[in-house]
């Protein structure tokens, strides 16, 4: 057996990915810049702040060579606010609170603005849009972007727990943060479970279920269940789908297919 792990990244691999998130540190000692395979690391000059990948920040923290500045969202106040939105707000009864916007994506405050994705180009000439864990969603910002409401980044469970384990002395009121993270996790887990009803939508071709705002670890937990259920539903409905395909192919051959008639059946996805 070349590879024993199931399809989809597992929990330990998700934690591995979360360790690529960038965090802000205050170094306690000098260190020259390094050229890592994951990109260059800026020179450390105390007391100037520096941005490092989380795994490196934790390595320095464990050796008492640096202090980690907690991410903007990992404070009691923003977490309490997010928890209130998740549990009380009418709009988010069945939905997760909105994630931090991607670069080029309009903020949640101005909904009418159109998104304009700004791609980078790879050395092979393909388009590349940056996404977590390679966005600065866990750095300690002091910029004007505080206009945006606080939001949970994609790797919030992992980053939160890693920092609580290794750097709890750098956090503001770690016990309170731990309690809030646990509450958030329970509220969101309940939402994930209540969304099981609409899984049928993903079993049809072209349909899907929106899970916007979900965290990486939450996704990993539900992956086995969701894919299992949807694949089971797909197998049950496969003969019906085959018949519909043949019918559509026939209609298209007669020139009567306008490509939209299927939409009404597949609109019942979770409203996120």
């Amino acid at each position, binding site marked *: *057996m*070349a*590879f024993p*792990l199931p*399809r*989809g*990244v597992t929990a330990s*691999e998700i934690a591995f*990915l979360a360790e*690529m998130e960038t965090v802000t540190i205050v170094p306690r000692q*000098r260190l*020259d810049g*390094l*050229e890592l*395979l*994951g*990109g*260059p*690391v800026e020179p450390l000059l105390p007391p100037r702040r520096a941005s490092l990948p989380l795994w*490196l920040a934790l390595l320095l923290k464990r*050796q008492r*060579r640096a202090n980690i500045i907690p991410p903007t969202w990992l404070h009691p106040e923003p977490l309490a606010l997010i928890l209130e939105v998740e549990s009380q707000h009418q709009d988010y009864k069945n939905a997760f609170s909105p994630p931090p916007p*991607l670069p*080029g994506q309009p903020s949640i405050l101005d909904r009418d603005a*159109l*998104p304009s*994705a700004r791609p980078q180009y*790879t*050395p*092979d000439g*393909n*388009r*590349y*849009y*940056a*996404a977590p864990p*390679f966005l600065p969603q866990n750095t300690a910002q002091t910029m004007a972007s505080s206009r945006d409401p606080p939001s949970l980044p994609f790797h919030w469970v992992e980053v939160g727990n890693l920092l609580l384990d290794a750097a709890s002395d750098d956090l503001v009121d770690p016990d309170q943060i731990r309690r809030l993270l646990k509450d958030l996790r329970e509220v969101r887990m309940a939402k994930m479970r209540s969304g099981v009803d609409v*899984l049928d939508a*993903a*079993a*049809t*071709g*072209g349909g*899907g*279920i*929106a*899970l*916007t705002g979900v965290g990486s670890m939450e*996704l990993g937990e539900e*992956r086995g269940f969701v894919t299992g259920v*949807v*694949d089971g539903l797909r197998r049950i409905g496969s003969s019906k789908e085959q018949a519909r*395909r043949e019918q*559509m*192919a026939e209609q298209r051959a007669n020139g009567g*297919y306008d*490509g939209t008639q*299927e939409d009404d059946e*597949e609109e019942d*996805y979770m409203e996120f």
Partner: protein
Amino acid sequence: MDIDDILASVDRGPGASLESAALDHQLLTRFWVAERAVSEVLPWPAPLMERIMDRMRIQIETIEDLAASSDTTLPTTANTHNPNLNLRLSILQTDLARSQYIVRSLLRARLAKITKYSMHYLVLLASRNKNSLASQTQSTASSQNPNQQPEDSVPDISGLTDLAPLSEPESSFLHAHQTLLAGHYAGSFMGAFPRQLRRLDDNAGGTSMIQGPELREVVFVRCLGAEVPVVVGGEEEQYGTGVTMRMGDVWVVRWEGVKGAWGRGEVELL
């Protein structure tokens, strides 16, 4: 800095600038997650993997040089000279080990899929590169062969140039693996079968014996483009579009519906 460092920095060439190291690392990570998330083998990103492997080779040399320099100098002078040498070494080694882990996991995930669907990929490669007439005459000729063996149903892919989605070592592994497997089947049980039942790609009765990856399985994706519609029925036979994903959304959709958008880099697998 000594002459080796200068030579090494020249050897890297123009394509290996620092930003491209970071970008390549992100591309590798994303490709690894994607490969782990879908049931079929994704197209091998040959240029990317070459750059990554080159960079790893250089990094290993750098680490060896650093380690050697710490050994040769006296411990006392080394400590005063560069107190951070051990720290630097451990950081570089951790970084290298993390990248090596991704590459190893990626390759093993691919090998697992290749061995699982070996006949499917062999037939896929062979059918694309040969004209169908030749393979048909070959198969009718071989079915009349009284000494029909399971090995005969393994297509020969030695002369092929277009190996997508596999890399060259993967395709030669695939052929060797399937030939060994067919030989083993022949020796253990298939040799006792009637000769018309000995083919591994038998499709008598309308049921193909070749199992391929299930493209209709659902995957978790994040939409990175402004708007990406989910295609109904896959890229080849588009029956129209289903729901539309907006930028930043996370969806559970069929892999066949977003495969094209993934190829254009507009969605990311999670």
